């Protein structure tokens, strides 16, 4: 018998060596860092391939909508609205959808940073940073009150409360903490205080209104709570007939909100007040015999009768009949809602405008019907603008030693004329809790990056009776720390007994507050833990109800009279055009720099990536300017260069510039609202001059006119049906759909063009962002675009129609027969499937698509780290050279079908919700099975308002559009 050890290489030895080599390979440093799933011992609730949802809250604007964060394998891949939340109601706007990209922004600070003597930021440890700050705070404290200041965004919840507690412990005064919201609707608060002794922002319930008049209030874009407003307007638009909500837009520029309007009163910039006064005058004029008018309002007649209609009509820039007609409409159609001022109408008379509109509300009995006081939680309202200015003055004067900046960007979001950047430069220690570079962190000495909202604990109460809870949906990506936690730790390091708080960490602090919420929402409850857990699962504590009419405040005696005079005309010097500054639905009031929001074209101009200056065709002709030219816009504050966009939805005496970048802020002179002292965005006059040609423009639209092709028909309320071609003749056999025929119905009467669907589609389907160069070359990749038609022919009547254009999933799809390799084909469920890895890229499908909804990957898409972590694992990332398009979110269809099969039941109607339909604030998109005659989408498709895009081509799309109802004249 031979010794086994002497065998050259036996079976066992071989296996041992092979095993050892395998283990060694597995232990190599590379393998150690590349985990397929980043859990050695997976948590019980994370199953690879199965999504996990967390309820939290959106912090992209002060509205405070509830959010459902969809996570996969421990990272958030999609945000959706929380259907239980009373504010957002399950929808999310474009900015909310894009909040995810702030989480994964490649330029996020990776940890605390300190500015060295050479002016560059360099990393340091948290302990070191906190020690440093603690020392500086103690030193500053010696210098007396006011040397430590906090500048913060509104934090209506734990974060704000803790900031106040911290400052108190340091011995600071309440006014040392300044809450900054550049777009704060302070005039509304001031008007409420003056008229009703309620310094509140009123809450609107627009679904009850039969008529809405928006005086420059961009209530579907950026004003107060746009998602909520869009939902409420859509409810009113769902009532086709005499009760359908009628919307009038008053202002010099037809904004995206104005696109939903039935009537546009082209008041000149600043003429909104004159319209409002004229309206009130007409209503209370006894000769007009308006019924059911509030007696307080009737009492104002003596003052109002003194106003000269011709003077008002001249100020408004409108004939008096238009104002009369509006008055007649509002006197008959009750209740109504009057909204304003918005940013574009927030001038030196903003509070007066707000007050007059409230008086009209009062006169017509809208208070307690559509407009409500008593719902503002008064939790951390923005500071009066005077306080912001005095803080900046103190900073500039060197009276501030330490400035803690919490998610506010004074240098990048306030008019340049305020010189906030310079003031910051005078502060010895600027501490920023910001998570991404902006104009303020560029000047900060210490950056202590906060968690993103999706990584932190907190709570937001945007309204009385609504507390939306914020909970981490994933582990923090970088070495960041919650700002509240930093303050708590900092307090512990201070030699002040008052600063030694009882809470071990910030989470415990939020829990303490949550307990009080739970008490308020539910009364005493035996098991608070269970209540809190349930609240976290649902997303918040809600005891929201609209107060009854009887709880509405009464008019303060003599308060109204001060608001009833025509203000002196604005000085005419400074230029021949009124400067109109407006916020956008994508960029809000400040440029976010988030790729999706930059990439998605503005719904009005269809421009992306750049700011622009709008001029009316007549003005453009007078100045010799064409779309794309470079123009200078000069005001008393400064001169900026922009690309021109010729837009018929603007008065001839105005030039319009979007907020959301340094350009508009540089051109804004420092003017304040006379009553509230808040910033007046509307007051400047401007001179526009052509500089030269501008090269290619990142613009999406080809021609915004329908050229007689009746692409988007409209109907009247009296005869709400569309003339459709007779397509009953069949020459060829059409594809059969034995089980399902997925289809969609899009109600154009509800669609506001808010672009939420577009951004949601980017997020859900890994649609790549190609950048400004690609945008100017026509290589935009979005699967949905909002087509905006301005009328029939250039120079003709302005009639805006929106058409969300996405793959129509045609039955007789022109794209299918022309593909040589069957990369696109018709599935048994009616989808035009696109097989990416079969596509060779002939692009014939795109040529033959009459809707031009297919996009081609001209180059490989780029998802710079860590933006790639957002990619939806259920959807392929396409490579260069292949065609792609809307799939009706086929991954969601398959998920629901598999779910149904597992549970041995048919797919339920409404179970499948594509990303666009899910996020639509107006609920304009319905999805379902057309093969089921009882499904919601089938019922909608049979409506008389239904039509299909380019229907006479007989492509037989799966998408039915419901025509918009257009009523130019009041019924």
């Amino acid at each position, binding site marked *: 018998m031979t010794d086994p050890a002497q065998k050259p290489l036996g079976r066992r030895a071989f296996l041992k060596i092979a095993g050892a080599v395998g283990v060694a390979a597995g232990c190599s440093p590379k393998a150690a860092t590349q985990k397929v799933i980043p859990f050695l011992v997976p948590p019980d609730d994370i199953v690879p391939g199965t999504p996990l949802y967390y309820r939290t809250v959106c912090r992209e604007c002060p509205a405070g909508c509830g959010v459902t964060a969809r996570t996969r394998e421990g990272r958030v891949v999609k945000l959706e609205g929380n259907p239980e939340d009373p504010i957002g109601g399950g929808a999310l706007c474009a900015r909310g959808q894009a909040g995810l990209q702030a989480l994964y922004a490649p330029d996020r600070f990776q940890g605390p940073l300190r500015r060295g003597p050479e002016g560059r930021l360099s990393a340091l440890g948290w302990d070191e940073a906190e020690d440093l700050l603690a020392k500086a705070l103690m030193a500053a404290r010696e210098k007396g009150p006011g040397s430590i200041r906090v500048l913060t965004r509104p934090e209506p919840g734990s974060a704000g409360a803790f900031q106040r507690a911290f400052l108190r412990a340091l011995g600071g005064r309440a006014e040392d903490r300044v809450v900054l919201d550049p777009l704060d609707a302070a005039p509304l608060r001031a008007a409420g205080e003056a008229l009703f002794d309620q310094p509140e922002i009123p809450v609107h319930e627009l679904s009850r209104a039969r008529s809405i008049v928006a005086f420059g209030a961009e209530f579907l874009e950026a004003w107060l709570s746009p998602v909520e407003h869009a939902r409420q307007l859509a409810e009113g638009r769902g009532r086709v007939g005499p009760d359908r909500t009628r919307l009038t837009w008053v202002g010099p520029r037809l904004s995206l909100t104005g696109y939903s309007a039935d009537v546009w009163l082209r008041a000149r910039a600043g003429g909104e007040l004159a319209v409002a006064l004229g309206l009130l005058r007409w209503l209370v004029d006894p000769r007009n015999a308006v019924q059911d008018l509030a007696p307080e309002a009737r009492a104002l007649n003596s003052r109002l009768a003194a106003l000269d209609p011709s003077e008002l009509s001249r100020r408004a820039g409108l004939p008096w009949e238009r104002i009369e007609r509006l008055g007649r409409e509002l006197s008959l159609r009750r209740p109504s809602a009057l909204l304003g001022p918005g940013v574009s109408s927030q001038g030196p008379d903003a509070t007066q405008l707000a007050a007059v509109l409230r008086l009209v509300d009062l006169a017509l009995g809208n208070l307690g019907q559509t407009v409500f006081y008593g719902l503002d939680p008064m939790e951390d309202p923005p500071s009066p603008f005077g306080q912001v200015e005095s803080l900046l003055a103190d900073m500039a004067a060197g009276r501030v030693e330490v400035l803690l900046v919490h998610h506010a960007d004074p240098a990048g979001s306030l008019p340049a004329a305020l010189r906030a950047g310079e003031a910051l430069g005078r502060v010895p220690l600027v501490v920023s809790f910001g998570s991404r570079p902006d104009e303020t962190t560029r000047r900060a000495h210490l950056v202590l990056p906060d968690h993103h909202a999706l990584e932190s604990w907190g709570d937001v109460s945007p309204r009385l009776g609504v507390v939306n809870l914020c909970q981490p949906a994933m582990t923090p990506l970088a070495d960041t720390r919650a700002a509240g936690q930093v303050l708590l730790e900092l307090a512990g390091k201070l030699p002040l007994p008052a600063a030694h708080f009882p809470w071990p960490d910030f989470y415990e602090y939020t829990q303490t507050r949550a307990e009080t919420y739970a008490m308020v929402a539910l009364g005493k409850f035996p098991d608070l833990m269970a209540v809190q857990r349930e609240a976290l699962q649902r997303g918040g504590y809600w005891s929201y109800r609209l107060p009854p009419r009887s709880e509405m405040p009464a008019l303060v005696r003599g308060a109204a009279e001060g608001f009833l005079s025509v203000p002196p005309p604005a000085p005419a010097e400074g230029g021949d055009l009124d400067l109109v500054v407006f916020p956008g639905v994508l960029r809000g009031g400040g440029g976010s720099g988030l790729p999706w929001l930059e990439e998605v074209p503005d719904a009005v101009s269809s421009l992306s990536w750049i700011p622009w200056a709008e001029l009316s065709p007549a003005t453009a002709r007078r100045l010799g300017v064409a779309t794309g030219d470079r123009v200078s816009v000069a005001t008393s504050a400064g001169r900026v260069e922009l690309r021109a966009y010729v837009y018929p939805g603007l008065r001839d005496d105005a030039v319009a510039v979007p907020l959301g970048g340094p350009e508009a802020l540089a051109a804004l002179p420092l003017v304040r609202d006379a009553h509230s002292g808040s910033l007046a965005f509307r007051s400047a006059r401007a001179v526009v001059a052509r500089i030269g040609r501008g090269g290619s423009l990142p613009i999406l639209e080809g021609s915004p*006119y329908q*050229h*007689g*092709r009746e692409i988007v028909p409209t109907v009247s309320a009296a005869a709400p049906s569309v003339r459709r071609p007779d397509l009953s003749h069949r020459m060829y056999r059409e594809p059969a759909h034995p089980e399902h025929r997925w289809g969609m119905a899009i109600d154009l009467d509800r669609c506001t063009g808010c672009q939420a669907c577009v951004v949601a589609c980017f997020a859900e389907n890994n649609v790549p962002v190609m950048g400004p160069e690609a945008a100017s070359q026509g290589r*935009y990749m979005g699967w949905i675009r909002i087509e905006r038609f301005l009328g029939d022919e250039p120079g003709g009547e302005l009639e805006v129609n929106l058409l969300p254009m996405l793959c129509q999933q045609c039955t007789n799809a022109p794209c299918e*027969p022309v593909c*040589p390799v*069957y990369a696109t084909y018709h599935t048994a469920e009616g989808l035009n499937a696109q097989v990416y890895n079969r596509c060779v890229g*002939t692009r*014939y499908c795109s040529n033959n698509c009459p809707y031009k909804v297919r996009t081609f990957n001209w180059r490989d898409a780029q998802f710079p780290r860590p933006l790639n972590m957002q990619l939806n694992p259920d959807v392929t990332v396409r490579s260069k050279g292949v065609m792609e398009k809307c799939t009706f979110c086929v991954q969601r269809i398959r998920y629901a079908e598999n779910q149904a099969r597992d549970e041995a039941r048919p797919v339920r109607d409404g179970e499948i919700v594509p990303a666009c339909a899910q996020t639509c604030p107006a609920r304009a998109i319905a999805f379902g099975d057309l093969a089921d005659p009882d499904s919601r989408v089938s019922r909608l498709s049979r409506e008389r308002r239904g039509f299909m895009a380019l229907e006479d081509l007989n492509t037989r799309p799966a998408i039915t559009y419901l025509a918009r109802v257009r009523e130019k004249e009041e019924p």
Partner: protein
Amino acid sequence: MSLSFERLQATVQAAHGRPGRGYWLLLALAASLAAWGGWAYSLVVRNGLYVTGLERPGCWGNLITDFVFWVGIAHSGTLISAILFLFRAKFRTAVYRVAEMMTVFAVMTAGLYPIFHLGRPWFAYWLFPYPNERGIWVNFRSPLIWDVFAISTYFIVSTVFLLVGVAPDAAALRDRAAGWRRRLYGILAFGWRGTDEQWRHYTRAYLFFAAFATPLVVSVHSVVSWDFAVSVLPGWHSTLFPPYFVAGAILSGVAMVIVILVPLRRWLHLEEIITPRHLDMLSRLVLLTSLIVTYSYATEILTALGEPASDPERSTFVYRMTGDYAPLFWLMVACNCVGPSLLLAGKVRRSVKALFTISLLVNVGMWLERFNIVVTSLAHDRDPFSWRTYTPSWVEWAMTFGAFGWFFFWFLVGLKVLPPVSIAEMKEELAHEAHASGEAAHAG
């Protein structure tokens, strides 16, 4: 008798002499042009079609224009050699070899462009129906698949036709050549010995191939036109396209033959073989096809203008004539309609210079015609919101001009290798002429 058999053979063979400096210069120019195009194409492969000017809706541009243009050029060869052979049009004899060479090289050029313009050219073989384990077949409903068949069939048939015609000539040259040429002609001669039986087989085969190739002349460009005509795009969707495209192809092909022949007969001293009569006949062909093309333009435009203003078809044609690309449209009309109509005058036809210029411009015009069809229709589709103008990038221009480099490179090589005039048929014709004149003298 103007030309002896010896003179004929010597003249043709002289073309195969040691190349001069001019030849090398031209060859180097052609090669570097082709290399430039190749370099540009490598950018497309590396970076994707991002480097082109293509966009949505203009998903096709220069490269497809080049494809259709070169398929068109490829047409005259078969027309001249096959159809005119069947019609016993004698004037073809002197010119058909050049035309056939042109055909083969033009198809070789044209065939590249559909591959070049693919998003993923490395999968171009998926367009061929080959058995595979995945059981995936090509889509026979797609005109692009018809294209694959049409072009590959045409390439095979025209190559075979060229080689069959070359066989007797190659044999004649083989007998006088030495070295590699002798071996090459030995292969190309397919063992030709000039026996009666071989001549009988040859003439049968030639007739058969001519008959086989004739329908291809009509079918290939009809199929190419279906790339456009079967779509739903205004400006493409037209039943007129097949005859219109065939006429256009012949127009451009014959014009190209003239453009090549005129300098060639000078440089190779073929004036005695390719006489003004031959050129006159070719110019009549240009005139005829130009009139057909002009008629097609008029038909298309007038039909479209008969529609109401809101009609997309009408809008597309109005756009072609007045929109962003209008200068190109009117240049096309000048080149393809006005220019050739001058050939109505015999004086113009007989002026070699005028004929050359007109033919050159016809080629420019025919390229523009394809550009107009491809680009303006895409730029002005049914949905006005997606209208957009396309401008080719330098990469596409490099590839467009690279095609000429590639084509002329092969053509120049071919000139030095293949007999530019069919010796055998010329001899046959000369013999017939001699016989006829001898008989006439006899009778006289």
